[in-house]
């Protein structure tokens, strides 16, 4: 006796409404009973409205004896009937191996029983077997996937309920969802099975004949497609989330083909940090195979032709992910099939990005060409056109963008340009030996609901409203935290974000920086060091501040079209997003939170208008209180303000500012020793203003103060360090002759040196949060004289660790305090020592936040965990 004949299969038929066609279904089972694999039939009369159904079942009962078991029940829906049949089958036959679910108007194929036995004995690892979609009535034969593929299953159901299901799946408690009475319950069933690690395969032989009618429950389900999909996405959030779908995409369907240099070195990837090496011939074959049968063969959705060294340069600058994401976004959101890219050296020392640069008369460093565009070129263009691709400008509609980095660019004046690399690739494809395959039909089956492989790139987008999905894979054992800022230009907010990131990195988190605007990234090395990747969403209108107002603070108009969805695609793979003043992010914060991203808002500053009206980011954040899990504030005072204005207390954690750049304890001790006792020095007083030369900082006040000091202390050193960033005073100010203008001071070493050569820091701001310059100065033993604003009192105890003066007539009071300190060098020394001793560290400031994150986030998954039981061969093949 063969193993196949030892198998025991029970067929379950739920019956409602087909009293005559039911005979055909039962008859088809009866024919297979003799084969010995199918040993029993269970029919569930699901409260059929026709008495004829019960009469028919009685007659079949008389004929089939104990090989048929009939249950009559009140109508409870298809799912309940199937579940009842499954429960009964498991109870009645403890030695059962598998169940086949057959609808009452379908039929088993001839030889289905032995075929089931063979499948069960041959493919021991498969948990269920789904038949080919072979229809009668409305004739048709549809493609089915040979192996159950979870990514494709997320897009469309690959398996009919009429499948052969092993007992172990049912013993695991997988059942049909009885609340799903409008359809797609089979889709849900297989997703449940997949969640528990089960997997199926196509029977690849006739098991069942499926009656297809113009109108059916399934077609009704398609009408309700949107509602049912939403239900499935909610229920199966374990699958319908961006990181999971991107991971599934990366397993089998590389999104990018990176083609580098004249030799056309090829690597395939979703995440550029996990590349599979290939070669041009392999890629050419993938493309041709895809064009020959797009439902069977995958090819990367984007071909990126790169001049030698460009990819390595971008990777070193942590920009490779954002490069690919922007390439994909630009191609998808424009009408062009290809986008040009230029890499340049930045003169300003910043990372810069420029969009909409047209089709210039210069050779591109990279070109991104969509697979769809490539197919159009191969179809519509001749070789003459392709040969012209190294001409400038390119002979097609295209646009371009530029990235500028402060580091030295790859050398390669003589190296092949991206257009030349693309040109040779296209000509190779046009002359491909496989091109004749495109004139053949490679499948006799219709696509039906099969997913064309060029849609795989779109499946992860489905989890984020259609936004372009960041090609980033999770790192085993690490949570990803994204910092989102509207600009990153060495301001206080940026320094705080970098300091926070540095502390979180120490705790094992993987950090990413996102700038939501097209502004340059101006950062010192230490500030970018904690980030594993740096990104731009370069929408200029993300900063236009011309949208609706909430409590007197305007939002940007940004967010139309797919802008919001794209930001979700950019951030959807993060476990935590910390929003540091990006108003654009507020617009999608709630959606991200609903997708499972922990949303944190970080507020720094209450701004004040000319007329003293409070406005600014904290006001806008109040409008989106519901969209965030947590609010961080730079001070206790701001925490109190946020609470007073409606943010629940347990959603608030103060992360009180600490000095804005790192300094070791040893260095601090050394500085204290160097400073010594100014009383003994009798040297001219050294006064410093450090910060942006913006109106907010009280520049006119500073001018008055410096002029008064020059009158009283003609030998005093008066220094100004910084530059205007946001808004200059608008009129020329008069400065005493001895004022030194240093311009911006970059880098911790330069700052520390400046502060060690300073006795007093003066900060006559109209409004502040908790200024980092004050904290940095205090750490270096500088006495600070500041106006009463924001949370300065949390850093300065008046008369003990500095001086806090009222806003009214602050110029006069500040001059008085400075003159007093000049006179009383002992007081100056006391304040210097006290200030240096009281300074806090970021480690202390972030303790509460780090505890909260540890409690809030689940254990990060390891790489091996949650892997589907089947892995595809596509990547193996190309490698």
């Amino acid at each position, binding site marked *: 006796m063969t193993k196949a004949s030892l198998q025991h299969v029970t067929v379950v038929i739920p019956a409602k409404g087909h009293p005559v066609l039911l005979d055909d279904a039962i008859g088809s089972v009866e024919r297979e009973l003799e084969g010995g694999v199918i040993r*029993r039939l269970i029919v*569930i*009369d699901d*409260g059929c409205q026709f008495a*004829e159904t*019960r*009469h028919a079942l*009685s*007659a079949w*009962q*008389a004929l*089939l*004896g*104990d*090989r*048929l*078991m*009939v*249950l*009559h*029940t*009140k109508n409870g829906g298809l799912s309940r009937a199937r579940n*009842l049949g499954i429960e*009964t089958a498991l109870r009645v036959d403890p030695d059962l191996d598998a169940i086949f679910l057959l609808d009452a108007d379908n039929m088993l*194929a*001839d*030889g289905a029983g032995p*075929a089931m036995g*063979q499948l069960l004995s041959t493919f021991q690892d498969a948990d269920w077997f789904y038949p*080919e979609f*072979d229809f009668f009535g409305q004739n048709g*034969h549809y493609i089915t996937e040979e192996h159950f593929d979870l990514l494709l299953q997320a897009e469309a159901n690959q398996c009919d309920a009429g499948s052969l299901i092993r007992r172990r799946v049912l013993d695991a408690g997988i059942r049909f969802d009885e609340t799903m009475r409008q359809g797609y319950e089979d889709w849900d069933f297989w997703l449940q099975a997949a969640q528990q690690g089960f997997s199926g395969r196509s029977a*690849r*032989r*006739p098991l069942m004949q499926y009656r297809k009618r113009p109108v059916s429950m399934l077609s009704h389900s398609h009408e309700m497609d949107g509602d049912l999909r939403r239900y499935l996405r909610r229920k199966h959030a374990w699958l319908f989330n961006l990181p999971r779908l991107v991971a599934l995409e990366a397993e089998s369907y590389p999104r990018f083909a990176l083609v580098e240099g004249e030799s056309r070195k090829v690597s395939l990837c979703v995440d550029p940090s996990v590349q599979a090496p290939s070669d041009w011939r392999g890629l*050419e*074959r*993938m*493309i*041709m*195979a895809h064009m*020959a*049968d797009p439902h*069977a*063969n995958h090819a990367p959705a984007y071909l990126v032709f790169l001049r030698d060294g460009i990819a390595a340069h971008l990777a070193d600058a942590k920009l490779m992910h954002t490069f690919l994401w922007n390439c994909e976004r630009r191609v998808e959101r424009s009408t062009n099939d290809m986008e040009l890219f230029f890499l340049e050296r930045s003169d300003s020392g910043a990372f810069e990005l420029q969009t909409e640069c047209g089709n210039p008369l210069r050779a591109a460093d990279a070109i991104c060409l969509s697979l769809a565009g490539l197919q159009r070129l191969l179809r519509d263009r*001749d*070789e003459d056109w392709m040969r012209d691709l190294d001409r400038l400008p390119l002979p097609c509609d295209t646009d371009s963008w530029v990235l500028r980095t402060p580091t030295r660019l790859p050398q390669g004046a003589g190296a092949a340009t991206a257009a030349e690399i693309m040109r040779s690739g296209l000509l190779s494809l*046009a002359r*491909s*030996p*496989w*091109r*004749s*395959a495109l*004139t*053949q*039909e*490679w*499948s*006799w089956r219709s696509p039906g609901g099969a997913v064309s492989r060029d849609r795989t790139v779109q499946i992860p987008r489905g989890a984020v409203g259609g936004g372009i999905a960041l090609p980033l894979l999770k790192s085993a054992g690490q949570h990803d935290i994204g910092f989102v800022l509207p600009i990153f230009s060495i301001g206080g907010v940026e320094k705080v974000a970098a300091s926070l990131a540095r502390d979180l990195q120490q705790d094992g988190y993987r950090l990413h920086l996102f700038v939501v605007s097209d502004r340059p990234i101006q950062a010192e090395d230490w500030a970018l060091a904690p980030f594993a990747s740096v990104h731009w969403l370069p929408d200029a209108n993300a900063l236009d501040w011309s949208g609706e107002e909430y409590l007197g603070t305007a939002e940007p108009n940004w967010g139309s079209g797919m802008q919001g969805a794209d930001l979700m695609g950019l951030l959807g793979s993060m476990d935590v997003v910390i929003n540091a003043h990006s108003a654009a992010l507020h617009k999608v914060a709630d959606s991200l939170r609903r997708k499972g991203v922990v949303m944190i808002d970080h507020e720094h500053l209450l701004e004040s208008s000319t007329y003293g009206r409070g406005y600014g980011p904290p006001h806008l954040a109040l409008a989106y209180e519901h969209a965030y899990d947590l609010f961080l504030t730079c001070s206790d005072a701001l925490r109190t303000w946020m609470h007073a204005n409606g943010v629940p207390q347990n959603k608030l954690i103060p992360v009180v500012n600490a000095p804005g750049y790192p300094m070791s304890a040893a260095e601090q001790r050394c500085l204290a020793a160097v400073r010594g006792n100014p009383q003994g020095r009798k040297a001219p007083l050294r006064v410093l203003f450090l910060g942006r030369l913006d109106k907010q900082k009280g520049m006119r006040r500073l001018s008055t103060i410096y002029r008064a000091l020059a009158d009283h202390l003609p030998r005093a050193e008066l220094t100004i360090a910084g530059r205007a960033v946001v808004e200059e005073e608008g009129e020329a100010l008069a400065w005493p002759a001895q004022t030194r203008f240093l311009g911006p001071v970059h880098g911790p070493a330069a700052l520390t040196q400046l502060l060690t050569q300073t006795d007093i820091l003066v900060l006559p701001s109209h409004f502040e949060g908790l200024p980092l310059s004050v904290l940095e100065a205090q750490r270096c033993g500088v006495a600070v004289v500041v106006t009463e604003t924001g949370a300065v009192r949390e850093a300065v105890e008046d008369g003990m660790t500095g001086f806090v003066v009222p806003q009214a007539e602050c110029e006069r009071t500040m001059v008085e305090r400075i003159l007093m300190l000049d006179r009383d060098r002992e007081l100056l020394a006391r304040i210097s020592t006290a200030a240096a001793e009281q300074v806090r560290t970021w480690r202390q400031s972030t303790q509460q936040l780090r505890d909260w994150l540890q409690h809030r986030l689940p254990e990060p998954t390891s790489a091996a965990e949650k892997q589907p039981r089947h892995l595809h061969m596509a990547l193996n093949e190309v490698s």
Partner: protein
Amino acid sequence: MTMDSRRFGLFVDPDIAGACQHLLPPALIAVPVSSEGNSVEPAPAPGRAWLAALVGPAKGSVWRARLNERGMANVAVIEVDPARPEHMCQELLTLLTTRLDTYEQEMGETRLASATLRRENHSDKTRFREIESFLYSLGNPQIARSLSWEPSGAIRRLSGEATIVQNIPLNAVSITALDLWLPEMPRNRDLGLSLSIIDAAGTAHELTEAYTGEETRGGWVRFLLDAPLKGDARNCSLVLRFTGNGTLAVGMGPRTPDRSFAARGDGMEEDDALALRVWKAIAGATLPEEPLALLASSNTGSHARFLSPASLPAPQLFAKPASASDYVTADYWENEDVVMVHPSRSGAVCAVIRDVPLPRLSHISAIVTVGHPQAPNLNMAVGVAPAGSIGRDGLWQTCMGPWVHGLPALGWAQAHCVPTSRINGRADIFLAVSLAQDVPNDLSWGLFRGFRVVTADLLDDADT
């Protein structure tokens, strides 16, 4: 212990069991079941039909709910008054006679349905006969070509024991014959080649060689199934097994980028697909009923051989129209192993491959393609004449075979020629190409990828 063969049963409430026990017919199984659950639970069982539950007064609704819960909504509930048990008999009889009445009615319906289906079947047969008659009047078409992968000129040689598996992108149903391009296979010779189609269910369907003769002349060899494949729609593949002593040259078709359709087996490249034609039977025809051997004897003793351009002397431009002012040429392209002939807008251009040993040549065919995707349609022909018999001013057209007309860009075909003059030893092969339309001759590359020659004498390898 013997099984109880009785099929119908009743649940009996113990409270009234005594009252009705003597009234129940012995053909029914009576199972005592208490509504309080202190007796046997009512449960559906395979092969058993429960007719009714006999329960005490006022217990009907409790029983109804209980039976519904257990999937026995069809079981009737009869309340029995212990004081008047004969009423129970009446209700039971009513229940049974109602079922009897129903079944007799349904029996009548079933007989009517059978008669209706027989009538429809008869009508279908009559109409099918009419369609069949009409088909006979159309010349008795029986098969249709369902797949055609033309030879590309690439040859793989099998030796020893070899197996090739080729997936076929067709539904297996109705396949009846299959042609392979075996350019060097002599006819009527058992080379140890067996072919079968394996369907998705794993069943092998053997094919046998059809000795039709005509196929062999062009290199195509036909293999037949006993009957067209039947059953449900399903995928299939071709398995070719060679167990002969010599070598077998198998012609390859288009190169396939899709690995699932690459021929798998010894000596195959990773993108080879067999040159293949698949025929399906029309409307159940079985083809042919018996192998044809009409021309078998006439070709006995011939030898077929495939010659690639690399194995032949270099081509020379032989003739071009006198008025031709555009660029024409004839050349051998080593990378592709083809002879290219570039025609003129003014007329046909002819190239010659001189002095090829083809003793007692009976037939030559050439695999021709139009080489460029933007080429205009081309006409192509092959010809042969005894070596040196046609001078530069001679009428080369007289030795050509029929022209292949209007071959489109990237099109593939075979051109044939039967020598008009007897060829005893060496021959010149003429390759002619012309434009099918009056257009510029840009990119009009006529490519000759290989030649199949049938000779009475065996060719010596050294000769070619």
